[in-house]
């Protein structure tokens, strides 16, 4: 089996994503009604959570599981630190903090698309990677906001107050994290018997719904592109090409680091790829919601457009097969 962009380019989910992008670029007005799009996104979290939980229930908790989860959490703490260091002198500090939180956290849809990529190729992956995903959603928010606060204190700059309990609540108890975690718990409790009841919905329809959802994501992502190059009234400025380099290069760097860690720890092919995708992906669901509440000074036109309009398409179209090639390369070139 050869891994090539071309082989991925016949996969329906990816093609529907591209179709959605084109639909917006040529202004067809095609649109998935927003309430339905939100429901499809909940469906994906529900399905992936439940499947992960059922898979977990079939296994013991062992060191392999523990080291995967620990690495995931480690990445979720280190990546936002790195992002902040990279960006704080290039951007207003609140935007640097917001991007740190966004890129330190993960995109559940990119993860889900990668599981579907693996399933199509019959490559196994572990149910606990869903837990890894859920665990990686929140820490970056805390880190990003913490760094912002620290920076302000240093500058004796006290304009913004962040309520710590509210921040913890927004980070750990937001709807999407809760739904994945809850579905995973229910999958774990109800096990194979529960799976038998609902598998036509969560297994049978999964790929098809993913196609429709990615069609919508393509539409939505393409709508964000022009915003990236528009000057904004309130002086928040034009970001342009420098930010594009960040939005493409940083994920690539994170994926590489994750792949090396995964290789050193001996994770299997599927899990390594998923870890890389988690590190490389940026949040556009949990984090933006928390940021609007806790750091409204930051410009969503920046962090939302970059994560949704640039990094997400990049990971879906180029990233997944690329990281996959890198995994294979590491496994074959440097066997442990």
């Amino acid at each position: 089996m050869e891994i090539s962009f071309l082989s991925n380019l016949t996969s329906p989910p990816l093609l529907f994503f591209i179709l959605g992008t084109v639909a917006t670029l040529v202004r067809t007005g095609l649109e998935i009604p927003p309430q339905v799009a939100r429901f499809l996104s909940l469906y994906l979290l529900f399905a992936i959570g439940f499947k992960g939980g059922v898979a977990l229930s079939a296994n013991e908790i062992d060191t392999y599981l523990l080291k995967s989860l620990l690495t995931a959490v480690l990445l979720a703490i280190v990546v936002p630190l790195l992002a902040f260091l990279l960006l704080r002198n290039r951007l207003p500090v609140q935007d640097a903090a917001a991007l740190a939180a966004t890129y330190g956290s993960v995109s559940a849809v990119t993860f889900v698309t990668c599981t579907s990529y693996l399933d199509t190729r019959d490559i196994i992956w572990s149910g606990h990677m869903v837990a890894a995903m859920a665990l990686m959603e929140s820490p970056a928010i805390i880190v990003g906001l913490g760094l912002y606060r620290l920076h302000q204190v240093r500058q004796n700059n006290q304009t913004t107050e962040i309520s710590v309990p509210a921040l913890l609540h927004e980070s750990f108890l937001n709807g999407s994290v809760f739904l994945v975690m809850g579905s995973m718990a229910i999958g774990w409790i109800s096990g194979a018997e529960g799976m038998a009841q609902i598998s036509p919905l969560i297994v049978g329809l999964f790929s098809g719904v993913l196609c429709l959802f990615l069609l919508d994501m393509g539409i939505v992502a393409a709508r964000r592109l022009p915003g990236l190059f528009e000057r904004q009234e309130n002086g928040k400025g034009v970001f342009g090409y420098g930010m594009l380099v960040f939005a493409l290069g940083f994920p690539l760097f994170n994926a590489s680091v994750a792949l090396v860690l995964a290789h050193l720890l001996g994770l299997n092919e599927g899990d390594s790829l998923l870890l890389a995708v988690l590190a490389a992906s940026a949040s556009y669901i949990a984090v933006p919601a928390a940021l609007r509440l806790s750091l409204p000074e930051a410009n969503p036109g920046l962090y939302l457009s970059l994560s949704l309009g640039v990094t997400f398409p990049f990971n879906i179209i180029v990233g997944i097969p690329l990281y996959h090639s890198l995994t294979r390369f590491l496994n074959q070139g440097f066997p442990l």
Partner: protein
Amino acid sequence: MRPCKRIEIIIESVLADRVIECLHAENVSGYTLIHGVSGQGGRGQRLDDDPAGTASNCLFVVACDSAAEAEAVVTAVRPLLTRSGGVCLVSDAAYVKH
């Protein structure tokens, strides 16, 4: 009919609960809320299309009995608007007693 002040607040949906807290804090007993609103302003375009709904706005209509009450509401929500953007319009209307 009795004169009243009609307040209209347009703000991000994620902040709707904070606005409601402000209203409760001012003992304003009534409001009406429309979700799923799009718009454009100084902070760029806001579309009601993203899968998380983070980018959509909402619109509050609040009828206040007196100018003083209206003033209190405006004072209470102004800091939210300053930090996060949005619009607040106040106009005169007559309230139909029933």
